[in-house]
């Protein structure tokens, strides 16, 4: 092995790692939304991927049609999506809170189909992209270049923003009253409401926060890949859900860990093993982990409610 080859191989490795981490932080952002909702309601919120898609589309629409500056559009999209998350819960899940879990699941699937087709009708099926000129110019420049490895400011931004948001979320859950209420509901909703916790308000907050993070991921993906289309939430949603389960569903740190692992596994799987089996490698890792750790990486095994 000569020097060139060693250099090539190590830079390939680093490239895959940075890509994996970028991908992973996006999965983690979406996965946290799943896991938070699951924590309080034990519901797989299938429409979460669609909230992510809506976030991207709203920001796109504001930037390209109304000429809103990018960061303002980003913020507006986040607010709209949080509100939408609350509405989603109010409309599709709250009436079913006392029904069996799978009933709410079907309602979620219905919402997911509806939102996908709504986006299709509003924005059309063609792939959309943010106009280059309206994006901050910093995004397209490279933060760091070394030989074959380069890292764009956007990648750094995505990574940092995810980390910051995760810390904020962690703070909210651990150190605020709402967070404490959320944890209480996760343990026993009935007892929590008997203790004077306003169940509806806390659940609404959970949905708003989850949708907020989902929308962040949506806009970031829309900018990073410069592609937005109506069914983009489907695959991302499934992967993120898998990540949430991998980390132990209901656990926020678990979702972050699961998302990162899945992203890195995908990058390395496609880079080193077989690109045709890229998703398969991610799923296989997930299955293996769950077989040996049946409650996910950081999950606690609890007796299941149905």
């Amino acid at each position, binding site marked *: 092995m000569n020097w060139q080859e060693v250099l090539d191989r190590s830079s390939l490795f680093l490239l895959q790692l940075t890509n994996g981490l970028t991908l992973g932080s996006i999965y983690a952002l979406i996965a946290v939304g799943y896991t938070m909702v699951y924590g309080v309601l034990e519901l797989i919120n299938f429409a979460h991927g669609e909230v992510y898609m809506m976030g991207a589309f709203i920001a796109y629409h504001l930037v390209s049609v109304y000429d809103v500056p990018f960061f303002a559009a980003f913020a507006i999209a986040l607010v709209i999506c949080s509100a939408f998350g609350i509405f989603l819960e109010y409309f599709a899940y709250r009436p079913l809170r006392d029904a069996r879990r799978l009933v709410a699941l079907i309602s979620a699937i219905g919402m997911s189909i509806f939102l996908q087709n709504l986006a299709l*009708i509003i924005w059309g099926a063609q792939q959309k992209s943010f106009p280059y000129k309206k994006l901050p110019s910093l995004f397209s420049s490279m933060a760091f270049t070394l030989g074959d490895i380069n890292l764009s400011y956007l990648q750094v931004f995505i990574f940092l923003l995810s980390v910051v948001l995760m810390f904020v979320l962690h703070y909210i859950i651990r150190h605020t009253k709402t967070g404490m209420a959320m944890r209480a509901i996760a343990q026993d909703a009935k007892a929590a409401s008997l203790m004077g916790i306003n169940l509806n308000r806390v659940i609404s907050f959970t949905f708003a926060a989850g949708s907020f993070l989902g929308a962040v991921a949506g806009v970031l993906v829309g900018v990073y890949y410069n592609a937005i289309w109506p069914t983009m939430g489907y695959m991302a949603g499934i992967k993120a859900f898998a990540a949430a*389960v991998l980390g132990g569903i209901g656990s926020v740190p678990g979702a972050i860990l699961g998302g990162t692992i899945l992203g890195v596994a995908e990058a390395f799987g496609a880079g080193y093993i077989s690109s045709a089996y890229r998703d398969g490698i991610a*799923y296989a890792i997930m299955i293996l982990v769950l077989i040996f750790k*049946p409650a996910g990486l950081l999950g606690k095994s609890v*007796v299941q409610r149905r």
Partner: protein
Amino acid sequence: MTRGLILLVLLLIPWIPIGDPIHYVLRLATMLMLYMVLALGLNVVTGFIGYLDLGYVGFYAIGAYTSALLSGYNDIPYLIVFFVVILHGCLWGILRGIPTLGLTGDYFAIVTFGFSELIVLIIRNEVWLTRGPMGITGIKGPSMFGYTLSRDWEFFYLILFILTLAIVIIKRMENSRIGRAMAAIRDDEVAAEACGIDARRYKMLAFALSASFGAAAGSFYAHWLGVAHPDMFHFWESILILCIIIIGGMGSVSGIILGALVLIPTTELLRAALLALSQWGTSAGITFISPDIVNARYLIFGIILVLMMRLRPDGLKR
């Protein structure tokens, strides 16, 4: 229940033009019954022992491809093929069951999902075996006693037979020791085990049975369409089958039949209704009904799902 089925057959018979090679209503009815078989199969796991299975389409695909590879090009009597397909389905049900026995709830669900995605991915990528995305085409109809089925009404009776068989099996099981044991596992696995029910054995039985139903349906599907292609086995199919079970009211045979009756024709009904609406719009000169309205089918379908759950959260039955 049996009365319901008889009623269904009676109502459909007037539309069976024997001899006609293709027939739309007949085709829909066949598809309806195909989904009933699938839903009955999934119900063994999701309804009887209470485990959410998101990967049912994997067995469907295994059945279709086993059948296509065995008898797509060779003249093997269909009864033998059918038997092999069922055994193959069972085998995979057990193979999937062994590592997942210890999993609970949604962990089980996501493993089944990963499993089915892996199956479809293998089908898509292993071109030497399955022809991958080129698909296996020109699969002949099932041949029985020297006769090869090809007309729509012949397939109609074949699936009617399979469905009847499936209902008989499920009904007999439901009211037997096995059925009661499974119900006990669904209600409380720990308590069931404490009562001396070997939960692992019954769960394994449920996995195998459920998988063989899926495989049987897949076999029929491949011969009926004449094609086996990885596009036929999207994740969405698993979800659709799950919807049938839950909309009907989980666990009972009659609920499943009702769920399929309502859900499967809906998209086709919407197609016809929206097309009529758009044609009426053009002929009456109403411009705000654009011809694009025909593409709102799934938008409406989504709303219907949500509303159905809101209005009848316990399923249509009950």
